[in-house]
Structures are given as C-alpha cells and as structure tokens.
C-alpha cells in the first residue's frame, strides 16, 4: 500500500526519465531523476510502495526501458493508468514493474490517497475512500511473463524446456 502520485494524460518517457540521464544504466542513479521534468518533488519524496496514478497513454514516446526501471527502482509498487503506450506496457511487464489499466480508479483517485494494488487479481483499492475497482485483466500469456519475474526468467524457462 502507498500514497498515490496523480498525473494527467500523455506522461511521456522524456519526462519520466529525460535523455540527459540515459548515459547511465544504474537503476539507483536513474531513480534519483524519475519524473524530474514533470514533478521535481517526486524523486525526493516518493516512498517504497507508492503508486503512480495517471490518465491515458502513460509512457508514450521513446522505447527507453530506463523509464520503467527508474520508477521501479524509486520504489513505485505499481502504475495505474487509464491506458498505457504499448512499448512502455511491454517494458514494464518485462522488467517486473506492476501495471494496471483502470480508467474508473484513475477517475476517482486524488493525489495523496492511499492506494493498494493486487496485480494477480487486477484489483485496485482506494483505501482513503473505501472504494474498490476491477481493472482490465492482463492476458494469460502476459501473466506468465509476470509470474516468471519478467522476460529474462520467462526466456530461461522456455529455453530450458526446448
């Protein structure tokens, strides 16, 4: 469970992690600049377990996996959005950053609300307001990658099985 950081539509990967920081691949370094150009207070104040809640098309733009990695390394336990841009969606699944599409929850969650996310069952709970939402479930194929801990684990399983 954690506090919601509420943002709008089209949060692009350039504001999640600006290109000027892409010379490093260290998750901790990246985390210290997460969302810097959108919300300079985020990286300093985010607590482990916090949830990023945003509108439509979250993660649009560049294919930089650094965007998913910096949020995860910053302690973000999940991103709940109205919708995700497709490359960010894949990157999040592949690197083990939990994400859920749930426009209804996004509509009702305010900045600072306490939010809990259950990825396996696709449930988002707004603890502050006592409301519960059922998110769009992830396809079973994608859940297999999630259960393998990300794409690296999934590939290892497949290679071992073949």
């Amino acid at each position, binding site marked *: 469970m954690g506090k919601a950081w509420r943002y709008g539509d089209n949060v692009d990967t350039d*504001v999640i992690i600006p290109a000027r920081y892409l010379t490093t691949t260290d998750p901790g370094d990246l985390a210290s600049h997460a969302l810097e150009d959108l919300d300079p207070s985020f990286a300093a104040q985010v607590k482990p377990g916090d949830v990023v809640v945003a509108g439509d098309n979250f993660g649009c733009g560049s294919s930089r996996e650094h965007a998913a990695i910096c949020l995860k390394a910053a302690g973000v336990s999940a991103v709940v959005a109205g919708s995700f841009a497709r490359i960010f969606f894949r990157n999040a699944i592949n690197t083990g950053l939990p994400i859920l599409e749930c426009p209804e929850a996004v509509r009702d969650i305010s900045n600072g609300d306490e939010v809990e996310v259950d990825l396996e069952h696709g449930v988002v709970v707004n603890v502050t307001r006592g409301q519960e939402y059922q998110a769009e479930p992830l396809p079973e194929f994608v859940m297999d990658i999630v259960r393998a801990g990300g*794409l*690296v684990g999934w590939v290892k399983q497949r290679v071992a099985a073949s």
Partner: protein
Amino acid sequence: MGSTITEKILAAHAGVDSVSPGEIIMCKVDLAMANDVTAPPAADAFARMEVGRVWDAAKIALVASHFAPAKDIASAGLLSRMRQFAQQHGIEHYFEAGRGGIEHILLPEEALVIPGDVVIGADSHSCTYGALGCFSTGVGSTDLAAVWATGEIWLRVPESMRIEYTGRPGPWVVGKDLILTVIAEIGDDGARYMAMEHTGEAIGHLSMDSRLTLTNMAIEAGAKSGIIPADETTIGYVSGRQQEMGRQRDMQVFASDETAAYARELTIDVDAIEPMVARPSLPSLSVPVTEVSGTRVDQVFIGSCTNARIEDLRIAAHVLGDHQIAKHVRVMVIPATQRVWQQANAEGLLDRFAAAGCAVSTPTCGACLGAHMGVLGPGEVCVSTSNRNYVGRMGDPTADVYLANPAVAMATAVAGEIAHPAEVQPVAPAERGVLVGG
C-alpha cells in the same frame, strides 16, 4: 473475411495460415536492431538469459547513433559496451560513427530491411521501416535481448487503421505534413496498439524519402507500426539499394485483401493540406504554418530520423537559395547518415549551408533528443524537423519546440521567425527542378 497486409506478414512469420487482431503469436524475426542507448541494457539482459550465443549474428544490427561520436565519458562507456558485444558475438552489421548514422535512415540504405520482413528494433521509431512494405516495430532492451536469444518475439496482432490519402501534395507539402495532419486529427494515442496502413493515390506521388517520414511518426500516434504496401517506387528503391550494397534477398510483396477488416478508416484530402507546424508540446497540436508564423525562434534544427535524408537537405538548400540565415538564429544541420552527408557534400549543399551561417555536423541523433549538438537552454524556442516536441525533449524543460518540414524550418532560419517557405523563396520547387512531394 480477408486479411490486412500486416496480418499476412505476421502470419507468414508465425508459420500459420492466418492471424486475427488480439491474438498473441510467436513470430520469427528477420532483423533485430539496437543503438548505443538500448544495446548496453540489452546486453546485460542477454547475459542474464544465460543462452551464450546469439541466435544469428548476421541478423543483428548495432548502430552508434544517439550519443555518437561520444559526447562525454559516460556515453563513451555505453558505446564501448556496444562495441564489445559486437566483437564478442561477431556482429557483422555494426556501425561506428563515420560509417553509419541514424539507424532508421541507415538500415534501408544498407538494404538490410526489405518488403515482407519482420523487423524488431530497440528504438521506438523502428516503425519507420514499414514504408518498405514490411512489419516493423519498436521494443525495449529486454524484449530485444529475447530476440537475440531466440530469434523470435511475442506479439499481439494489432488491429489496423486504414488511412486513404486522396489528391496530390501541393508545393512545400511532404510526408511530414501528411502525418502531422493525421496526428492532429486522431490525437497522440489515436492509433494506440494499431497498425497504421497508409494507402491511396497521393501515396503514389510520394518519394521513398517522404514515405519513410510518414511511417516514422506512427509512434507519435501511439501506433505499433506504420506500413505502406510496396509499389514500383518501393521495389525500384530496394532493388537499387540491394545492387549497390551487394545484398540480395528475395522481397515478399504483400497486399491487403479488399475484404480485410479495419478498426478505423480515415480519408485525408491531400489537396487541402498546407505545410504544418506542431506547437509545443505535443505532435497533435499541429496547425497550418500560417497560424504560427511570426513566432521568433532561437534555433532551427534540420536533422533526425524524420527529416534528414538527401531530399530533405535538397529542399532546405533550395529554400535557403542565396539567403543568409537570420542573425539571431543558430541553425544546426545534421545529415542523417554518412552516405547522406557525402551525397549532400558532393552536391555542394553542405557548403551552401555553411556559407549561409549554419553549423553542419557529422551524422548523429544529437539535438533531436537533447543529447548534444544543439541542446536548448531555458526559455529558448526551436523549430525542429524531428518528431517529438515533448517537454524537455531537446533540453531545458522550459524550452519550446515546434515541429515542421525542412522547407518551413529553413524558411524560419532565414526569416528569424516561423515562416512559410513561399515567403522567403517565391520560386516553387517544381519550377527549380527539385522534387517536393513526388
């Protein structure tokens, strides 16, 4: 029910007769590309997959583009990690500064992508190659590492959006203006998860360079891919490239069935399109140039995988004519690849730019992503021929970026404020023998 071109290419690579939107398939890959930003994390993920060898060293391309030539010590580190991976795995298609350039312009030039292929690139603008009639999409580094390991990728078969372009582009209108018009109409996520299929008579009038611009910006509408069915222009271009590079592979020309199903169909009247400018800070905020003309600028950037091909530089040089650039404006001209640079040099274009006061650089992504060679300072205003004008994209988050075609960009450089090319260069390009829009 029939299939779209995208469904046919994917089915052929999944080894099945047909596929439907929404279905998840495992697809064989013809080329897997990464650059200096995405290859190092991919190499780390690949090592963690513990498979040892890459699936096919001849089907991997590694391109030093974003921070190349190294802009600082950290980026030199990324570049050398990519070089080490290339050496360790015997990657044949490895492109250093001085021998490559920006991947999305380089790979078609090198005849490494051809009609009918499935191309996976660890860069969002990998959708560009679709202009050649192939399926091509961008992924992140771990996805790419999985392709290196297995030669396959999982894909959700996308719904298709069919865009029919009627009419003929007027003077000063190129692929950039068509795609900005579409994005303004459908929005920044209007084609999210979809394949954008560009068809219609106006496409026949577009040069290969202009078509590559059209598919380059599919991602700016959230699309998974952009595709233009191969026609004589495509086949002529690809055959020419194959011959020059000495690379022969059979092209597979696919076309959509008349009975194919589309999630959305759109008609764009190209006769009515004017040169477009995307206002800060989203590509969808595009308007005809006349609505923003007079906006004072500090920098003009002519470069990037969107508009730094030879045709783009010819158009820019044509608009420049014998003018000098405005005193208060800094102009960066960055040809996209070594080959484009050499061609522009041979034609005297680089000299012309330099004589007019432009800074001309060796190929790199550079200013496009605010890396180097033209990073914007606080409050600066830039007209860029690239594809993204997001907050902070080209440097300081308070800088403003306007996107435009090369003719508008150079007209702006001359006028010192956003200008229609006709304002600075009254001779229409067709009369001067320069092909604009086909």
